[in-house]
């Protein structure tokens, strides 16, 4: 199936009749997935500065409200239908990872589930990886996203669509009047310029080198901010707080980052990760060792956002490089 590019917005308008449509768009200051207002242009040239995780796992989410006067607790039940049109394959992969955490472990997160069930993803096959992108080293195919409901790829003056799921079929039906026949195998292969070589047992090697001095060198320039965590599509740590107003109030959760010094500080003041070395190591190991150990896949999807945005230009790909280097050396 194909859709002419000049019909793309008309198609979105049909979808917008029954769901809130999010598009990658240029913000005033940074690009992100924004609600489509019916007119705005999609921004497909580069991946967004902010990952789409916010749509499933908001920066700040009010979980429930309580009123002790009335004796009531009202839980939030997000029920809005959301369609992301133009999500990149790396970000689709990140949603698959988040699903593992929030849905597939023994605990199911109700807020995440409600949003996830209401989400349809139309992936945009990546034709222009950025210099910092390395998703194809992390087992993502830039032009394909099996986890998406629909995949679309640029084919000159039109997009080629592939439907993967019943949700995708529903989208197809909504926009059928704008579709014409066409094949997906037109799509040329795309390759990232940044390549990461990693041994298959990377996670084991890393854990073995928990006390290696390399962590100190790697974290030398770390400022200890939360930038990498917050723009990472798969970082999912959160903190829970309350906004009390006398006998009424609300409980919320908001993003938190293991890079902050107070993240791991305990009530008595002890901090098991007292310096940036321990904190950065934890973050890297979580991406490349702990998660693979538990779920069998790397938590890093190779979107390259943290490399691009880190104030100190830290680069997660240096970690496998070091391992690979020492392996080949020795």
């Amino acid at each position, binding site marked *: 199936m194909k859709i002419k590019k000049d019909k793309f917005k008309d198609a979105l308008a049909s979808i917008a009749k029954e769901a809130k449509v999010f598009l990658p768009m240029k*913000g005033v200051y*940074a690009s992100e997935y924004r609600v489509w207002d019916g007119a705005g242009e999609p921004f497909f040239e580069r991946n967004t*500065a902010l990952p789409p995780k916010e749509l499933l796992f908001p920066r*700040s989410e009010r979980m429930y409200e309580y009123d002790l006067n009335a004796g009531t607790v009202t839980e939030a039940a997000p029920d809005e239908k959301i369609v992301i049109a133009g999500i990149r394959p790396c970000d689709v992969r990140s949603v698959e990872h988040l699903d593992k955490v929030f849905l597939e472990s023994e605990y199911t997160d109700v807020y995440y589930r409600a949003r996830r069930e209401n989400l349809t993803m139309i992936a945009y096959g990546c034709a222009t990886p950025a210099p910092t992108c390395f998703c194809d080293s992390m087992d993502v195919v830039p032009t394909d996203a099996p986890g998406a409901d629909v995949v679309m790829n640029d084919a000159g003056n039109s997009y080629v669509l592939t439907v993967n799921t019943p949700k995708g079929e529903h989208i197809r039906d909504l926009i059928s009047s704008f579709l014409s026949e066409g094949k997906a195998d037109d799509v040329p292969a795309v390759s990232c310029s940044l390549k990461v070589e990693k041994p298959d047992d990377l996670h084991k090697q890393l854990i073995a080198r928990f006390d290696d001095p390399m962590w100190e060198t790697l974290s030398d320039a770390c*400022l200890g901010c939360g*930038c990498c965590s*917050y723009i990472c599509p798969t970082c999912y740590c959160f903190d829970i707080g309350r906004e009390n107003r006398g006998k009424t109030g609300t409980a919320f959760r*908001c993003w938190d980052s293991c890079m902050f010094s107070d993240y791991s500080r305990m009530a008595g003041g002890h901090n098991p990760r007292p310096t940036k070395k321990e904190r950065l190591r934890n973050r890297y190991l979580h991406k490349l060792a702990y998660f693979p150990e538990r779920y069998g896949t790397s938590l890093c999807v190779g979107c390259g956002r943290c490399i691009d945005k880190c*104030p100190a230009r830290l680069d997660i790909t240096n970690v496998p490089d070091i391992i690979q280097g020492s392996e080949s050396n020795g």
Partner: protein
Amino acid sequence: MNDNLAKMREAAKRALESGDVGYVIGWGATKFPDKTSPLFMRKPEDAERLVWNEYAIPGIAKYLLDDLYPDKPIGVFVRGCDSRAINRMMKDNRIKRENLRLLGIPCDGKDDERCTICRNRNPLVYDELLWDEAPTPEPKDRYFRANAVEAMSADGRYAYWSEVFDQCIRCYACRNICPACNCKECYVDMTATGFQGKQHSRSDNLIFGVTRAFHVGDRCIECGECERVCPMGLPIMGQTQKILKDINELVGDYESGVDAESENYLGVFDLDDKDEFM
């Protein structure tokens, strides 16, 4: 390789070889030609990894707070902005001059908008100057952000800052890079007191913005690092510039970090300070 880089490598090497310093902080290469990363040189041969080009932008003085009690002095390459950062932190009693070995490198301006308002390319404090000073070009409007915002209506200003802080992800990169943000503990991390709400809401984000500006305001060295590091590209110097502009309007020429002695505006008073209330 340019001459200056050779001088820097030589100086770093010499310092490390002599054993006078524990390590030297400068800039190193990354996998990307247009990015450099702060480099910590521990061995003389590390000096070969030093780079000096128009992308040697990141501020490196703030790392001194990571190592307040070094066994040996720390070597730091200091441009004008780094030297003001060091003055700033010395004035705030956070670092000690005797722990520093300052290798002065007059700066040639970098590929960054913030450098156009630079008033001191030449280092103001150093132990050794690696090459001759050159005059700092006439800086652009010192308050370029604040002037633009001031020109807006009150509603316009609120809308402007709302738009800015709606995008703020509270990663605190601006805080962590800022040499004036040098508290041991930051108020935002002490949620129990209640000065800062943790929600990523418009109000809590705006309050963070204003509070950060007020905490830094009279001590801002105008290096622009807060904006450079912002992953969202937010024009937050507009807040600190406003405070500096007001101070300059209220008491005349005021600049922070040009030395390690001058008092902070909010740390002193004058009997005939302007009285705008009442």
